[in-house]
């Protein structure tokens, strides 16, 4: 299995466990949606996979590399994991180009620029290359955040409620775009949502999270 998560436990404070015995695995190129109500622990699960939090127990493996288990923990900056935050968090003092280039390592200057342009083409926003985040609409910011996370070619991409800040019309459009980008890049991705339609539209499989436990899984048949 490409992504393998085994009996993960986590608590922010000793008294209140947030995630209990989470296990699931994913194949390469698979898109999994985590569906659950507010406070069920969805964001927390992503923070564990990305390495922003350390689990109390359990194992995470991605692409045959152990990211964390009882005796190893790879820091988040060393993991090949990309993440798009709920509120995008584009660096406000950098323009689009610099934002996307930020995570690209070991590339020559020219190659870096090529990579950024490639990403911008993917999301159809070449003309905004020198714009600053505050000059972009919500939907545009969202796409730039996606491009920024994809640019370093992560092994797995995490998306935390990617549509929560968009209005209904835009959401539909971006949802389709996101799905085609996922397929085009053949990305392995976990995305979090509390909207069943979102999940069904994009994911190959839905994992239901309730009170920190996985209660159900559902495979979506392509229509």
């Amino acid at each position, binding site marked *: 299995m490409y992504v393998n998560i085994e009996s993960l436990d986590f608590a922010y404070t000793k008294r209140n466990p947030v995630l209990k015995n989470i296990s699931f695995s994913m194949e390469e190129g698979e898109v999994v949606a985590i569906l659950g109500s507010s406070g069920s622990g969805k964001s927390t699960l992503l923070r564990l996979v990305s390495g922003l939090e350390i689990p109390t127990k359990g194992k995470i493996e991605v692409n045959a590399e152990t990211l964390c288990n009882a005796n190893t923990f790879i820091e988040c900056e060393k993991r090949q994991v990309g993440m798009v935050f709920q509120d995008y968090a584009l660096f406000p003092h950098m323009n689009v180009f610099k934002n996307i280039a*930020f995570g690209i390592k070991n590339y020559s200057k020219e190659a870096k620029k090529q990579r950024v342009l490639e990403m911008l083409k993917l999301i159809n926003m070449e003309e905004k290359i020198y714009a600053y985040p505050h000059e972009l609409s919500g939907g545009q910011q969202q796409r730039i955040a996606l491009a920024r996370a994809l640019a370093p070619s992560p092994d797995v991409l995490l998306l935390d409620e990617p549509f929560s800040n968009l209005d209904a019309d835009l959401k539909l459009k971006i949802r389709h775009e996101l799905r085609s980008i996922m397929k085009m890049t053949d990305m392995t991705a976990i995305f979090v949502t509390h909207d069943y339609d979102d999940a069904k539209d994009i994911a190959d499989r839905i994992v239901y999270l309730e009170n920190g436990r996985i209660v159900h899984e559902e495979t979506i048949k392509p229509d």
Partner: protein
Amino acid sequence: MLSRLRRNVNIFSVVSVIAAVLIVVPMLNIITEIFSTPTPAWIHIRDNLLRGYIVNTLILVGFVAVFSALLGLFGAYMVTRFEFKGRKLLSWFLILPLAMPSYIAAYAYADMFSYTGTIARFFRRLNLPIIINMMNMEGAIFIFTLTLFPYVYMLTRSALSKQSAAFSENARLLGANKIRTFMRVVLPLLRPALVAGTLLVVLETLNDYGVVAYYNVRVFSFAIFNTWENLGDTQAAIRLSGVLMLLVFAIIFIERMIRGKRQYSIHVKGRPIPRIPLKGWQRFVLPSILWIIMILAFFLPLAQLIYYATLTFTDVFNMGFIFLIINSLTLAITATLLTVIIALMLANYNRGTQNNFKKGLLKITNLGYAIPGAVIAIAVMIFFIDIDHALFPLYRLIDENSPRLVLSSTLIMLTFAFVLRFMAIGYNSIEASYDKVGTKFTEASYSLKASKLKTLLQVDIPMIKHGLISAAIIVFIDVIKELPLTLILRPTNYNTLASEVFRFAREEMLQESAVPALVLIFISSTLIYILTHYKKKEVPINVR
């Protein structure tokens, strides 16, 4: 046209325009004087001394700016990002050095390191061949850094605690290590606060007269006072002021350039960055550095002053001294009330405006803080003497034997100068609270046909009470420890705590100066305590 005029005339606009005029006219005096024929004294200064003044001023200001930026940033980063024993205490302690006027710290240090001073004797007893001379440029840099870094600390601390965790988490997810995350993301987002805080430090350093006079550091304010008092050459003093103003404007211009124009919000909604517990050697070493800074900046000079006060208390403390305290308090309270009231009018006049005339007026009325005290003092003095000359016929009408100078021999002149200088400080605190409240309540009140005054008293003031109180406290502290304006503009034989400290120090009676100095520090520290604890949130001291 007339109706439009009438619509725009109200208590807020009238006060604002009058305030702006009263500030501009004295400053114009300085500018016109610069273009008159130069006196021999000025030619001498220009050819022989000016270069030295400029170089010294730049050295002093440059080092103080860099060091206090580093100290302030370090302190702010420590208390917002890490968890350690004593963090809560330190997070307000680090503001406390503002209660220690630079000149008082300077006297205490000069004395401790003098041949007979506590520290010099201590070194000798340990047979350490250490002789440190405080009374030079290095000493002045040391004193200003330690007493002024809290400006940087406060502004960067507030910015750091608002910075969303998402930015640095994102940077790390994109593969940046801790250093790169700090240099490329955390620090650039802090830049506006860091630069604004450093600008305050620079302006305060340029304003000072007490430290540079005692340590004999020949910078501009030293030169202006010297030409004015010892050479008695007003015109040369004004020309020096003019050059200094050019320097100040250049500095402000540079600040605008580094601060950058980009308008963006650094607080994406989301959690602030959680504090990490310090581990290993860092647990002791890093907080110790902060404590050492606190001891050097506050507790050590305080201890020295307390020791001296026990020696001289009985000599100094008498009826006269009580009057001194009353003088200082009444003066400070009057100036504070006036400043806050006018600032409130200005803030109301400018609320939510995009009008260029209003914005310009505001810039002018907030200019005072950027102008060093010595310059304001001379400008105000000339302005009041002019007024007295103009009003002299009127004075004679009232009283046959009226002296020529009436207004300029009263406290009105000094109070006026205080209001002029500290307006920006009061205004910014009030504006910050208005920004938080927004305009909807006020508009609701107007829509209910309440008058401007009624709205102000019953809606606006209660809503921004905290901002008003912090504005008043900050202005009060600044006024009560203010030296250059007080020295030049106070009526003959009118003394305040600050001027007494200065007089004792000048007469080499440092032990006696300890008592008034302690009273000053006590009043200011108490107010800082109230300010930091009354309103649990940020202390807004942003001048802009």
